[in-house]
C-alpha cells in the first residue's frame, strides 16, 4: 500500500513509500519511469517522504511507523542512508523540510504527541529540538510557513542578514491545528491554536508565498471538513477559518499548487478534487482528477505488496 508519492524540486524524480517498508525513487523524466533506488532501512510502514531543496544535494527524508526518521542522500549516483533519527516513542507520521533559506531543517510529527526539529549543523551532525506534548495522542502533519521576512521585502536594507521568523503549522489527534514560532532564544513556542475541526486533523498545508501579505493554511480532518485559514494582519495572530467543503468521508491530504491558487484535496473515498478560490472568495471545485488523464501522464505500478 503506497502512503505517499512526492516529486522532487524539478519534477523529474518521484519518491514513493509504502507499507512494505520500502522507499523507492523513480526517474520520471519525459514520461518515462525508471527505478533508480529501492531504499531499505525502515522496519515498519513508511508514511511520508520529503525532498530537501537541491541546494543541499539530493536528499530525501522518510518517516515510518517504526518510530524512525531516515535521511537519505545520493552520493555519486548511489543513494545511502546519511542519518537516522530515533528520538520518537511512536509512529512518525509526517516530515517536512523547512524553507531552504533557513538551512537544512526537518520537522517531524509523531503519534507520541511530540514534534522534533532536526537541524544540520555540519560535520554530519544533526541537532535535535523536541516539542513534547504538542498534540495529545499524536501529531499527524507538519507544514512550514514560507520564508517571508516580516514587513516589506523591498525595505530590507541591503547586505543585512534577513530577519526571518521561522514558523510551522501542525495538526493532530486533539483536533487542533497549532502554529509554532521560533523564539529569539531558539526555543519553539506555541503561537496559535486553531480550533474548528471536530475530529483528528489529518493534514495541514501552509500555502506557498506569492508575495502577498496574507498567510494561508489549508487543513483537513477525519470529520470530512476542509478549512482554509487566512491571516491578514502582520502580527500573524488573527486567523479566520473558511469551510471549503464538508466531505462524506475522511479527508487525508491537502496540497497546494506551487502558485498557491489550487488546492488538491484527497479523500478517503479514493477521490481527488481540485479547488480554486473564485473572485468572490468562494472555493469552487474545478475538477475531479481523472487519474492518469492529461497531456503528461505516467503511471507507476507496483505489484502486490506484502502488507505489514
Amino acid at each position, binding site marked *: *500500500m503506497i502512503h*505517499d*508519492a*512526492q*516529486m522532487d524540486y*524539478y519534477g*523529474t524524480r518521484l519518491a*514513493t513509500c*509504502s507499507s512494505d517498508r520500502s522507499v523507492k525513487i523513480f526517474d520520471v*523524466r*519525459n514520461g518515462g519511469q525508471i527505478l533508480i533506488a529501492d531504499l531499505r532501512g525502515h522496519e515498519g510502514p513508511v508514511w511520508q517522504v520529503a525532498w530537501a531543496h537541491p*541546494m543541499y544535494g539530493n536528499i530525501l527524508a522518510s518517516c515510518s*511507523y517504526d518510530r524512525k526518521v531516515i535521511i537519505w542522500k545520493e*552520493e555519486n549516483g548511489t543513494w545511502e542512508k*546519511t*542519518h537516522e533519527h530515533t528520538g520518537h*516513542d*511512536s*509512529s512518525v507520521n509526517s516530515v517536512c523540510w523547512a524553507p*531552504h533559506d533557513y*538551512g537544512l531543517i526537518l520537522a517531524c510529527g509523531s*503519534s507520541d504527541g511530540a514534534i522534533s526539529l532536526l537541524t*544540520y*549543523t555540519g*560535520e*554530519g551532525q544533526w541537532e535535535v529540538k523536541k516539542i513534547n506534548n504538542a498534540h*495529545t*495522542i*499524536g501529531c*499527524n502533519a507538519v507544514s512550514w510557513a514560507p520564508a517571508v*521576512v516580516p514587513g516589506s521585502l523591498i525595505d530590507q536594507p*541591503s*547586505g543585512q*542578514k*534577513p530577519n*526571518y521568523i521561522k514558523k510551522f503549522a501542525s495538526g493532530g*489527534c486533539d483536533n*487542533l491545528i497549532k502554529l509554532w514560532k521560533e523564539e529569539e532564544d531558539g526555543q519553539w513556542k506555541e503561537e496559535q491554536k486553531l480550533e474548528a475541526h*471536530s*475530529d483528528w486533523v489529518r493534514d495541514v498545508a501552509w500555502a506557498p508565498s506569492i*508575495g502577498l501579505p496574507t498567510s494561508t493554511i489549508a487543513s483537513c480532518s477525519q470529520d470530512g471538513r476542509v478549512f482554509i485559514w487566512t491571516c491578514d494582519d502582520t502580527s500573524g495572530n488573527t486567523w479566520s477559518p473558511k469551510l471549503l467543503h464538508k466531505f462524506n468521508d475522511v479527508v487525508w*491530504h491537502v496540497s497546494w*499548487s506551487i502558485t498557491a491558487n*489550487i488546492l*488538491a484535496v*484527497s479523500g478517503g473515498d*479514493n477521490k481527488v478534487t*481540485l479547488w*480554486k478560490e473564485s473572485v468572490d472568495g468562494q472555493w469552487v471545485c474545478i475538477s475531479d*482528477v481523472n487519474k*492518469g488523464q492529461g*497531456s*503528461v*501522464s505516467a*503511471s*507507476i*505500478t*507496483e505489484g*502486490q*505488496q506484502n502488507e505489514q
Partner: protein
Amino acid sequence: MKLKEIDRTAMQAWSPAQNHPIYLATGTSAQQLDATFSTSASLEIFELDLSDPSLDMKSCATFSSSHRYHKLIWGPHKMDSKGNVSGVLIAGGENGNIILYDPSKIIAGDKEVVIAQNDKHTGPVRALDVNIFQTNLVASGANESEIYIWDLNNFATPMTPGAKTQPPEDISCIAWNRQVQHILASASPSGRATVWDLRKNEPIIKVSDHSNRMHCSGLAWHPDVATQMVLASEDDRLPVIQMWDLRFASSPLRVLENHARGILAIAWSMADPELLLSCGKDAKILCSNPNTGEVLYELPTNTQWCFDIQWCPRNPAVLSAASFDGRISVYSIMGGSADGLRQKQVDKLSSSFGNLDPFGTGQPLPPLQIPQQTAQHNIVLPLKKPPKWIRRPVGASFSFGGKLVTFENVRVQAQQGAEQQQQQHHVFISQVVTEKEFLSRSDQLQQVVQSQGFVSYCQKKIDASQTEFEKNVWSFLKVNFEDDSRGKYLELLGYRKEDLGKKIALALNKVDGPDVCIKEGKQESEFLPSAGGTFNISISGDIDGLITQALLTGNFESAVDLCLHDNRMADAIILAIAGGQELLAQTQKKYFAKSQSKITRLITAVVMKNWKEIVESCDLKNWREALAAVLTYAKPDEFSALCDLLGTRLESEGDSLLQTQACLCYICAGNVEKLVACWTKAQDGSSPLSLQDLIEKVVILRKAVQLTQAMDTNTVGVLLAEKMSQYANLLAAQGSIAAALAFLPENTNQPNIVQLRDRLCRAQGQPVPGQESPKIPYERQQLPKGRPGPMAGHSQMPRVPAQQYYPHGENPPPPGFIMHGNVNPNAATAQLPTSPGHMHTQVPPYPQPQRSQNGWNDPPALNRVPKKKKMPENFMPPVPITSPIMNPLGDPQSQMLPQQPSAPVPLSSQASFPQPHLAGGQTFHGIQQPLGQPGMPPSFSKPNIEGAPGAPIGNTIQHVQSLPTEKITKKPIPDEHLILKTTFEDLIQRCLSSATDPQTKRKLDDASKRLEFLYDKLREQTLSPTIISGLHNIARSIESRNYSEGLTIHTHIVSTSNFSETSAFMPVLKVVLTQANKLGV
C-alpha cells in the same frame, strides 16, 4: 499510554461517534462496592479534552441516581447530523429495570433527565446493545433467558426475538450483528451462545464447544465479516477467546490463549477489525489480532483487574478500562511517554504533604523527586502493527510544472473471498491546466514576439479594449513602432498639429487680429513722429533721465535695471538685446521673476529650455499639457528623464486616476521598470489574466524600446524580474515550461530568475542546455554520510544560511542605479572545465550575499548607450602584458584561462550569454570590482585602492580573468613580515606620485601587482630564511632611501638563491628599486 483517570467504581459508556466533543458517561456499578461501601449512586458525564495535558477528566455533570447499574450504553438515537442532541443513555439496573436518560439534559443540569423507564425484566439487566442500523432498536438480556427488543420510539412494549432458550439461564452478553441488521446473538455464563434471526423470530444457531468450561463473559461480532464472532471465557481453567465462523459452527475457527486467567471483558475495534481488546483476571489488558491470534500490544496496567473495557467510538486510538480498584482509566494505544501520569502522582503527593513542614521539625521538606527509573518505564511502545486508521490510502501532491502526483490503493476483489484481496498500487502523474485563456493569450504574445507583428497586435488590442485607459495604453504602445513617434504621442494627447494651426489662424482672424492691427498701427504712429520730430534727450533726475544717462554712458545693465524697476518690460528687453547675450539672458530671468501671468511659466520654460521646471511644478491636472510640451521641445537625451519625472509625480499623487496616467508617461519614457511598478500599484495583479495584461504591455514596450532607443532591454530590474518570474511561474504551473523559459529574460543575474531558469531547464528533463548555466545555481551543500571528520565546504554549512542565500526581491538597489556592464563571475567561470572537487565550494549566483551596491548581481538599471556608440565602446583596451607565472592566485582554474594579452575580456566573461546581447551596450569599466564578493582575495582590491591617483588602473581584465571559483580565504601575512609589504607598497606609491610618463606608471602599477607573489609566499611562509632576511635588508635600505644599497642586496639575493624561488617577484623588485633610484623619491 494513559491519558486520563477518573476515580470511580463504575460502568462506562462513550458518547456515540457522531458526538463532538467526546463524552464518557459513568454509572455507579451495582456489582462492585468501592472502599467506602457507600450505597449512594450517581450517573456522571465527563468530557475527554485531549488538549488538556493533565490526567483529570473534565466533569460535565453529575446526576444523583437511585439506581446502581449493571450495564450502561450510549446510543445515537435521535441524534441529528449536527450532533446537537446527544443521543440516549440506556442503563441496565439491578431489579429488571431499564432506564433511558437524556444526556443533554444531564449536562444541562436538568432535574428531569429520565426519558422512560421499564422494569419488565427479571433480575439484573447485564446485557444491552443498540442496533447500529436502526438505532432505535435496543436489545436487552437478563435472568431467566429473558431477551427483549425495545423500540425507543415505542418503549412500553418490548418484543422478543423468539421463544426463550431452555433451560433458563442468565443472559450475560448480547450483541447485534455488524453487517446484517436482523441478526442478534446472546450468550450466557453457561458457555452457550445463541444466534437469533428476528425476521424468523427464532434462534437459528447455537454455538458451543461442548467443553462446559466456556463461561461467556464477552461476545462480539466481527466488524466486517457477517458470519464471524468471538466469545470470551471467564473461567480460569479455560481463559480463552474463541473465534467462531457460523458457517463452520462445529468448532471454533481460532482460539486465542493469551490470558493466564479468566477474561472479564472484550471489545472489538470498529475502526480496525484486527484489534480486539481483552482484560482478565491476570490483570492484563491485551490487544490482539483475532484474525491471527497475535498479541499486538499489552497495556501497561497496575495489578488490578479490569471488569469493563470500551473503545472510544470517535477517537479510534482511545479506550477506557474500569478496574476493581475504583478507577476508570483512559488510554491511547499509540504509545508515547506518560509524563502526565507521573506529574499527577507528584501533584497528589505534593498536595498531601506540601513543601511546608508537616511534621513540625522546623525544616521544610525538600521538593519531591521522582526516581529516574520510572521515566524509562513510562516510554510505552505503540502497537506492533499500525492500526488501519493511520494508513493513508490516498493522496495527491502538486509538484513543479503543474503536475499532480496522485496515488491510490484500490482494492480489487479476488475470487477467493474477502480475505484474499488484491491491491492495485498506482501512482499517477497528471498535468493540471486551469487557465486556458491565459495560456492562449500567452501563446499569442509569443507568436507576436517571434513574428514581430507588433503594430497589428497593438491595433488588435486597441480594438478589443474595454476601457478608455486600456485603449490609451495600447495606442501609446503602438506609437512606439511607428515613424514620428513624438508627433503621434502629441496627437494622442489631443494636440494635432494641423488642428492647432487651424485654431490659431481662426483665433488670429477673429479676436486677436484687429487688436494686433491696432497695435501695429500705434507702433507706427509712435515711431514715425519720433523719427521725424525733435529728439529731446532729457537727463532729469526722474527715471527717464536716469535711463538716459545710463544709456549715454553705455551702461546697458543699469538702464535695463531701471526699466525693469519702472516696469517697462518692453524697453528693458529691447535694451537687453542691444546689450548682448548675457544681459539678455539675465533680463529674461528677471522678467520672468517679476511677471506673474499664468502663461509666463510656460513661456519661461520655452525660452529657458527649462522643462524640468515645468514637469516638476506644473499642476498635475495639466499633465497632458506638460507631457505635450516635453514631447515637443525636450532634447532626445533628456526626454526620457522628463517623462519619467512626470510619471513619478503623477504616480505619487493620491488621485488614482492620475496614478494610472503615469503609465502613459512611462511608456513614452520607455521605462519598463517604472511601468511595471505603476501598473502593479494601480491594478490588482494577482490573477493570471491581469498579470497577462501587464506582461503583454511590458513585452511590447521592451521590444519598442529595443527598436527605437537601442537600449539593452535584456537587463531587468528587480520588480520586472519579480513579475516576469511570476509570469513564468504561472506558465510553468500550467505545464507550459518551454513558454515559461521563452519569457524569462535571458541576460540577467536576478537570483530568482536564475533559479527559475535552472528549475525550468531541469524540469524539461534535460541537462541545462548549452552554456546557459551548466551548474545549478545553488550552493551545493556538502552533507557527509554520518561520519564525522573535516570535509570540504563546511565553512559554508547552513549554520549561517541566511548570509548565503537571498530570496527574490531582497536588497534591491535604489531604482535608476546605473551600472556599467553586467559581469557575472560565475557565468565567467561556468564555462571553464571544473574539477569535481570544486563543485561544492563554487560561489554560485544563488546564495550570493550582496554587500555592495556595485555587486555583480545587482540588477543593472537602464544603460542608455545609443546604438552608434556601441561598437567603439565595446573594444577594450589591451590587456596589460602578463606572463603566466604572474597569475597571483596560482589558482589552477585561473591558469586554464587563455593568457593571450589581447584576449577580449567581454568574450570570456560573457560567453555564457548569447552574443547578440553582448552587443547591447555592455560596457566595461574599472568599477566592476565586485566588492561584495566574499571570496575575493584582498590582493585584488589592493591595486585599486593603493594605486596612485592618475595611474591607469588596468586590472579590470586581470580581475575578470582570475575571478575565483573557490572561496579562498588567504592567510594573513605574518606580522613580522608585514613591514616588507608596507615598505614596498609605500615605495611604489611614492614612485607613482612623482613619475610623470605613463610608461613608468604602468611599469610601477604592474610591479605592484606582481609583488602579490611575494606576499603570497610570505603568507604561506615558504621562503627560505636567507631570502627573508635579505628582503628585510632591502626594506631597511629603502627606509633610509639608500636604493643603491638595496640594489646591491638584491643582486646578492638573486645570485645566492634558487631561481625558481625568487623569479616571480625579484625582477620586479629590482624594477621598483631602479625606478626609485632614478626618481629620487
